[in-house]
């Protein structure tokens, strides 16, 4: 049986973190192929629902990354992200999701190396934790 390969979903804001992920590519920083990236215009767009849905669908880890505080392309979007997701993090922990599976990071457009490092670290951690046991779908509105 092959080694367990976790699946991590990353939500990145268009202006900083997505650009940072691009920069990791341009700089050819290598990182594990376990992450799938979803682009949003601002991390402020990320609703807690997206995170819950990701875990429901089978994600073993979820990363949210936006501009550094103060750098937001839309001035203050990332402040909302921070507040909202802090609460969500606590909730997830409460329902039994290891906090190492859910990360919120600030990654700028020039931090390609940081992006690669974050993915490396997270993949390693989540690998160590093993697969996330599935959430029961209480309400699936699709």
């Amino acid at each position, binding site marked *: 049986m092959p080694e367990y390969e976790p*699946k991590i979903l990353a939500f990145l804001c268009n202006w900083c973190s997505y650009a940072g992920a*691009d920069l990791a590519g341009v700089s*050819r920083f290598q990182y594990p*192929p376990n992450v799938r990236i979803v682009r*949003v215009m601002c991390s*402020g*767009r990320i609703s807690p629902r997206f995170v819950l849905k990701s875990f429901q669908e089978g994600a073993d880890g979820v990363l949210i990354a936006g501009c550094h505080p103060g750098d*937001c392309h*839309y001035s203050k979007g990332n402040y909302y992200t921070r507040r909202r997701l802090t609460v969500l993090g606590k909730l997830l922990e409460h329902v039994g999701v290891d906090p190492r599976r859910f990360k919120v990071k600030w990654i700028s457009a020039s931090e390609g190396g940081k992006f690669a490092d974050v993915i490396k670290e997270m993949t390693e951690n989540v690998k160590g934790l093993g697969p996330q046991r599935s959430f029961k779908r209480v309400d699936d509105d*699709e």
Partner: protein
Amino acid sequence: MSEEKKVGAVLVVGGGIAGMQSSLDLAESGFKVYLLERSPCIGGVMAQLDKTFPTNDCAMCIMAPKLVATGRHPNIELITNTEIENLEGEPGNFKVTLAKHPRRVSAEKCTGCGVCAQECPVEAVNEFNEDLLPRSAVHINYPQAVPLTFIIDKTACIGCGICEKMCKANAIEYDQAEEEQDIYVGSIILALGFDEFNPEIKKEYGYGIYPNVVSSIEFERLLSATGPTGGMVLRPSDYDIPKKVAFIQCVGSRDQQCDKSYCSAVCCMYSIKEAIIAKEHTEGLDCHIFYMDIRTYGKEFEDYYNRAQDEYKIGFTRSRPASIREDPKTRNLIISYIENSEPKEEEFDMVILSVGIDAPKDAVRLSEKLGIELNEHNFAATKKFFPLSTSKEGIFVCGAFSSPKDIPDTVAQASAAASKASAMVSTERGTMITKREIIPEKDVRLEGPRIGVFICHCGINIGGVVRVPEVVEYARTLPNVAYAEHNLYTCSQDTQEKIKEKVKEQNLNRVIVASCTPRTHEPLFQATVSEAGLNPYLFEMANIRDQCSWVHMHEPDSATEKAKDLVRMAVAKARLLEPLKMATLGINRSALVIGGGISGMTAALGFAKQGYKAYLVEKTLELGGNLRHLRYSGTQEDPQKELASLIKLVEENENIEIFKSAEILSIEGYVGNFKSRILSENMEHEIEHGVVVVATGALEYEPTEYMYGKDGRIITQLELEQLLAEDKINPKNVIMIQCVGSRGEKVPYCSRICCTTAIKNALQIKEHEPDAKVYVLYRDIRTYGFREDFYDKALEEGITFLRFDVDSKPKVEVASGRLKVTVKEPLIDENIDFNPDFVVLSVAQVPDPNNEDLSKSLKVPLSKDGFFLEAHMKLRPVDFATEGVFLCGSAHSPKFIDESISQAEAVVSRACTILSKDYLEAEGVISIVNSDICSGCETCILVCPFDAIDKDDKGKAKVNELLCKGCGACVAACRAGAIQQRCFTDEQILSVIRSAFQEVST
């Protein structure tokens, strides 16, 4: 000039990055452009580069969209493989005769498929790859070439006729002859670029004899993923990976012996860049740079230099090597040089000669045909206060042809020349352009999704890792995918045509491109989709290069699987995409210019000449800014006279309204429709304008070091200039200290202008008093470009230059009423004492502390040094990311007068691409409210950073489409799900999440 009818067209000569930028600006501002290029395709030297400094952006990646935009613009007529034969007529109405050389392949018929080149039996020298990999006689220069039309190289062709037989499009035309064409234009821009110095002339370095001595441009190709070695650094003698390489600077620069006295201005930075990239490509590589002075004078350059030393451990040795010899056994190279007066030798596996910039080979011929003057180095002659004008009215110059310069300065000048060229014929705007055809949009709302997927190999960038054909096969199995194919370069012009064809042929109503990043390429593909008759928002990208093949280079299986997932996720989203209609708005055709220095005044005058109103806001009582304190220009021109005449022009122009001792109270609105309140001389004014220009300049650093302020004989360069000009002093013994503040802890960057300023003033002292002794204490002399001639003159005049190390700075004391300066001379490693009459400090240029407030009210960023930060360091030097806001002059970073003028003119050109339009279109990706669900709780209003949400008369939220920037914060905040963000709806994102783990259908 006024008698004859003017022509609303401009001829741009040279299709490099400068020519493209000029052409795009002019074409977008309502002028017809003829873009003339000698070689078979546009792109110039930048197409050959691997990366660009200081951001290490991939040159082709950032240039490709411009190449395509130039190639597809309806107002630009590309005329390649053609030269100027004759010029007649007057400024405003020139008749230019062109000599079109036969291409022998029909531009209309050639599809660029390349079968001819595959079958051609001849191998010829490949200029693009610097003879490191042969090409065929029928060829194109590089895969993304525009136009993508092959050409037969008659000198290599043996005329066997195979290509004609193989060409399915019947595009081969052996009998094409030389052709003449006459065109009529109002003005001309010369963007000829440069040629590389031929290093064979420097015999002592053995180029052409020792295989492991290569030129910097050859090395650039070795670094490139598309180059002969696929990006692996290999040395030519045995194709081994070198362990230790050396760069030798100033080969063909700063060298009287080979008649190149000037500095080529770019080599220090490109060598550092090549060394960094080489180290990244090659494990354990040792890089060493031999230099005379490191000239990292540009924005964020010093930081790059520091990182090269500290992070990348690149070695720097201050020495110009005397010679290179080869060890015939190992083919290693032994460099002989002198360091600290001691002869030394060191062995390297490979040596890169950093070749300088030569005047374009065509310069002399062309200058005679056009009647323009060249300078002593065969570059176009310009004046300090008229950096864009040649000696002939109506003919302008930009880029390296006026002096060696890097890409951002070239791009700024290109826009600037466009502003000058169009100002001449501004009355004819819009008379010769093709009105953009409005392609009727197909209504797809009632159709089920039919998705077309185009997957890019990106040469080997994707295809070398991801098994692209397999991903295509996979895409075909996904629900709603009606068509899938792979392309060598999906961004190339022929593929764009192909996408359009396929949309029609396969009746597609959604398009996905899986290639690089939407950040750079989405607009290009959206335009294509739109030309195919689909709404541009029925397009989605999958990033399988930057975020897949490049980061999983050694895991082809996983990378292929990931690429499939990314395509599946894109399909999941594409299926739910909806056509969006953009709101349009009118434009206020006027500009607000903040700052009344040379940059601001130049910009205001530029707008006025284009026929637009400018509001010029100056915080002090007087126009002129820092220029008011300059007394000497170092050339024949008198700065105060030039300034006075500029002020007069600005003040007398009825299109310019000036506010002095003014303060901006607020700026509101958005591109095309700004509203600002200005407090001027205690009166409040409200003005409306379409664009904003930041030209707030920089300040002089007030030194705390070297006892400044403690003794009247310790002064700054500006103070010296003032005292000299007013004949108040007659110094006989002067010490100048460079880098006061700059390149240190307080001001980490280089202030760019201080070396030249010091030399200028030193020469001035000598002119007053030929026997005066002037000593300049420096770290590196950074007289880049033709400013080097100044430096040479200073040396001739007996001005003494003494270098000091950063960790043993000179000491200034006052001992028994006399000034005493002590400096440790690194060569002899001993202290030298001086007792000068004056100590003159070359102080740094620092950003205005008010920048912070202005940046906040304009919502534009500052760099970490506190200057304004442009949209893109290389290709958008005067634009902000925020549309309609521009910057120029020292507010961008420290600058010389000519550079500030160039940037100011550039801003005019960039802004005219907005001001000349009939209307603007709002963003498509914005939020919309479903008022049936909205409860009117106002949460969205609280979170909106742009005050774009209001309540309507029914108490429901309402989004102002023109103010909304599309961040989506309100959507995530809405507790009822009443707001959706177009293109990023909950439904779309949730579907993408679901498809990340499994296949989903509608």
